[in-house]
């Protein structure tokens, strides 16, 4: 099989080596440059020094290898899997590799992001090239020492050998290797020779996690640090009129109360005093813009679906004509609520603003943008800002937004104290940047037993679908196809949420296809396979999914799930989707218990290309599936007069262990370059569950969360 998605890059632009003063060799490489080849570095490459690199490999005299990884780790496993790619081509034993979160600051490192399930996909080629280049330099040094040709030398687990039976370990030649020219055109391993890639490798932070070591932002402490709890407007669209802080200041441990913008910060010696002080504040608010409620949103979005204010994102043929000429038309509307992220670690950030510099520490998916934004807001030069990333207790998109870091910087700027802003769970859920409420209306036309047209309309709060998503399946399979979007601009903050833009869409389209197949009296699987057949050989560059790969995951899921041959009492639902460059098919098995659907098992077939770390990959896949079921079944944030109606886990339900199915994971085996797994298994699972519920009950549930639409009094427990 051919390798696709090969990225072009210039090795010289991101790799330098030198000897270390204390012995050993260090290889610096610009991970950003390596992973984002289409972006021009903002620095003069001829002037590079080690401060310009953001990742390093250090090989000591003893042959120990340290890889400094700069990327934000939010639970997606890149701190483990990205160094694996380097170690593979460097040809060292994984047990000899030590991975360290690189020391970070925005002066030297301004280019790190976690998001979009892209880290492995984009790092695949350049990270292996980095390892291979370093290996070649070590081999060249050994060959020179022996007076043999480098091509006669082999390596294995950090030891170089030649045909004469000589042996040198990497540590014995690092100092010579560091002085050599960086070779061009190094050969990468054939996948059949991989000894680390494809192995189950444990999370590199596991020892610290299972012993409760300080790793996360909330665990960060510094001498003299104070804690700030912030009272924000209780409803969206409100502004602060006045406040009384007498009772707050009377709380033991409260040191100060400061206003900034429409917020009030209570500064205290410890978190508890800060929270208590915040609760003791008395504030008056005024409604400055619309006080929106869930009913209001429903009305607005339904009005948009019924109206004509759409922007067309893709148009093939003439759907109106296809509908006019059709024998049958199926039209269905799907509805979803707002969702908060609910990272288990509530938002927090440390800032210390002084005359000389701005120190920032905490969990953030976008450190560079945040540091730059804070410098701009405080009228400082970005070179005065340093930012250190902690491990993150979940991200799911919430930590792409630096609002909490801006708050910390604002408060520290006012008080000049080292401040950690701490969100209570209620603050975290109420001051969210939510997955917006979305409604879809999908219509399809059938003529002479064939699908002739497909029209997808989206109405979303603020914004949703964009980019290449309108070109996902079934785009390309139909002559008449159209995608339209319309938005209502709300004062409620919305943004990216795990698998943004498709986390609800995939569920709807998979439910719709189930209904469509029934109306057409064709087998659901056959309908998909046949439609995909028509996409093969497409020259439409907007179509990124592979029809062959989607067909393969469908066939694998069908085979492994015993599709159509389930035991009595087991009801199955099917779903297939492509997003974040990964192809996924899922089958949900449910049983009915006192009229309540219980998801017992989900069979997942995944084509993510080469599976770099099967252990970590399965964790991501299983997590995505269960997280997706939880939110489709239970997730809902409603609003009344602009105020979120759930702010803690007593009124907001996240899925728990006794509600989870077994997730059975199967990979399509191939040698195609890997793609990411943090998101793509989540979107389709809602559809698989809805289809299984239909199979069990004859009832189509088109509104999330499903729990509200099952006519049931109690939740399973």
């Amino acid at each position, binding site marked *: 099989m051919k390798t696709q998605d090969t990225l072009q890059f210039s090795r010289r632009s991101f790799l330098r080596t030198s000897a270390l003063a204390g012995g050993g060799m260090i290889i610096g490489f610009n991970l950003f440059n390596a992973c984002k080849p289409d972006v021009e570095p903002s620095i003069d490459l001829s002037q590079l020094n080690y401060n310009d690199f953001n990742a390093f490999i250090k090989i000591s005299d003893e042959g120990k290898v340290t890889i400094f990884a700069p990327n934000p780790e*939010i*639970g*997606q*496993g890149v701190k483990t899997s990205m160094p694996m790619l380097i170690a593979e081509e460097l040809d060292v034993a994984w047990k000899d590799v030590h991975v360290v979160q690189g020391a970070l600051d925005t002066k030297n490192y301004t280019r790190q992001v976690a998001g979009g399930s892209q880290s492995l996909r984009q790092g695949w080629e350049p990270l292996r090239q980095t390892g291979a280049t370093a290996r070649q330099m070590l081999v060249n040094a050994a060959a020179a020492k022996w007076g043999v040709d480098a091509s006669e030398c082999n390596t294995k687990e950090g030891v170089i050998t030649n045909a004469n039976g000589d042996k040198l370990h990497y540590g014995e030649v690092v100092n010579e290797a560091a002085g050599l020219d960086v070779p061009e055109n190094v050969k990468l391993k054939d996948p059949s020779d991989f000894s680390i890639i494809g192995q*189950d490798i*444990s*999370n590199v*932070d*596991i*020892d610290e*996690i*299972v*012993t*409760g*070591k300080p*790793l*996360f932002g*909330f*665990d960060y*402490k510094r001498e003299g640090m104070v804690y700030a709890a912030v009272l924000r407007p209780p409803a969206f669209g409100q502004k602060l009129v006045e406040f009384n802080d007498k009772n707050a200041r009377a709380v*033991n*441990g409260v040191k100060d109360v400061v206003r900034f913008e429409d917020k009030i910060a209570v500064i205290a010696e*410890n*978190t*508890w005093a800060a*929270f208590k002080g915040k609760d003791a504040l008395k504030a008056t608010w005024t409604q400055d813009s619309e006080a929106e409620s869930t009913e209001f949103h429903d009305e607005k979005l339904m009005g948009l679906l019924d109206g004509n204010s759409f922007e067309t994102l893709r148009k093939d043929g003439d759907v109106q004509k296809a509908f006019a000429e059709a024998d049958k038309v199926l039209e269905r509307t799907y509805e979803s609520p707002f969702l908060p992220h*609910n*990272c*288990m*670690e509530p938002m927090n950030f440390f800032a210390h603003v002084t005359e000389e510099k701005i120190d920032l520490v905490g969990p953030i998916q976008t450190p560079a943008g945040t540091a730059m934004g804070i410098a701009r807001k405080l009228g400082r030069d970005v070179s005065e800002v340093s930012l250190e990333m902690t*491990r*993150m*207790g*979940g*991200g*799911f998109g919430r930590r792409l937004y630096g609002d909490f870091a801006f708050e910390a910087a604002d408060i520290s700027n006012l008080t000049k104290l080292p401040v950690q802003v701490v969100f*209570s*769970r209620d603050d975290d859920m109420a001051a969210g940047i939510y997955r917006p409420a979305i409604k879809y209306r999908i219509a399809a036309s059938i003529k002479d037993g064939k699908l002739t047209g497909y029209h997808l309309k989206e109405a979303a709060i603020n914004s949703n679908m964009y980019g290449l998503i309108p070109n996902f399946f079934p785009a390309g399979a139909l002559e008449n196809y159209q995608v339209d979007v319309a938005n209502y601009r709300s004062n409620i903050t919305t943004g990216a949420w795990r698998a943004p833009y498709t986390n609800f869409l995939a569920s709807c389209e998979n439910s719709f296809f189930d209904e469509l197949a029934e109306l057409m009296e064709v087998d659901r699987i056959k309908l998909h396979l046949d439609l995909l057949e028509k996409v093969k050989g497409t020259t439409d560059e907007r179509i990124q999914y592979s029809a062959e790969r989607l067909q393969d995951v469908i066939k694998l899921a069908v085979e492994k799930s015993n599709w159509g041959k389930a035991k009595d009492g087991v009801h199955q639902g099917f779903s297939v989707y492509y997003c974040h460059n990964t192809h996924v098919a899922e089958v949900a098995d449910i049983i009915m218990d006192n009229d309540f659907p219980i998801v017992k098992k989900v069979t997942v077939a995944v084509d993510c290309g080469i599976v770099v770390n099967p*252990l*970590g990959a399965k*964790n*991501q896949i*299983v*997590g*995505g599936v*269960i*997280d997706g079921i*939880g939110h489709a079944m239970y997730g809902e944030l409603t609003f009344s007069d602009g105020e979120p109606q759930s702010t*803690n*886990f*007593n009124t907001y339900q*996240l*899925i*728990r*262990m*006794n*509600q*989870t199915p077994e*997730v059975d994971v199967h990979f399509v085996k191939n040698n195609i370059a890997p793609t990411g797994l943090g998101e793509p298994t989540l979107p389709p699972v809602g559809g698989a569950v809805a289809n299984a519920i239909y199979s069990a009950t004859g009832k189509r549930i088109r509104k999330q969360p499903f729990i509200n639409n099952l006519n049931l009094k109690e939740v399973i*427990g």
Partner: protein
Amino acid sequence: MPSYQLKINGSSKTVDADSDTPLMWVLRDQLGLVGAKYGCGIGQCGTCTIHIDGVATRSCLLLVSQSVGLDIVTIEGLSEKGDHPVQQAWKEVDVPQCGYCQSGQIMTAAAFLEKNSKPSTDEIRNAMQGNICRCASYNSIEKAVKLASDKLS
């Protein structure tokens, strides 16, 4: 501010705190024992789970004034070398994704297995349902609790 003498991980600690301060904040902010995580503050998520006289307890709901005379064990004191059978099982299965909820999960599992060393799958699923994991590492947690029970017997 009143002073309290607490027995934590086998040693005696004296802390000054308001009587209504949850033990979790005393552990985290005053004693630097940050293994008990803050997740919800109302006993719903289990990230702050510790052992009180061997029983899994939410340290966000237990006040410092109620903690005197109790045998308090946090994840930092679960084992000397991080090698409690539950911790070993967690490593072997590679449970954590983001990792934030895991010390609470481990403390719940360790106390549960102390009482029921040969649990059924349903017993595990019910015993662990008080601990939320947004990464949804539940399949792995279930597997690790089973593995730990094998190690204990």
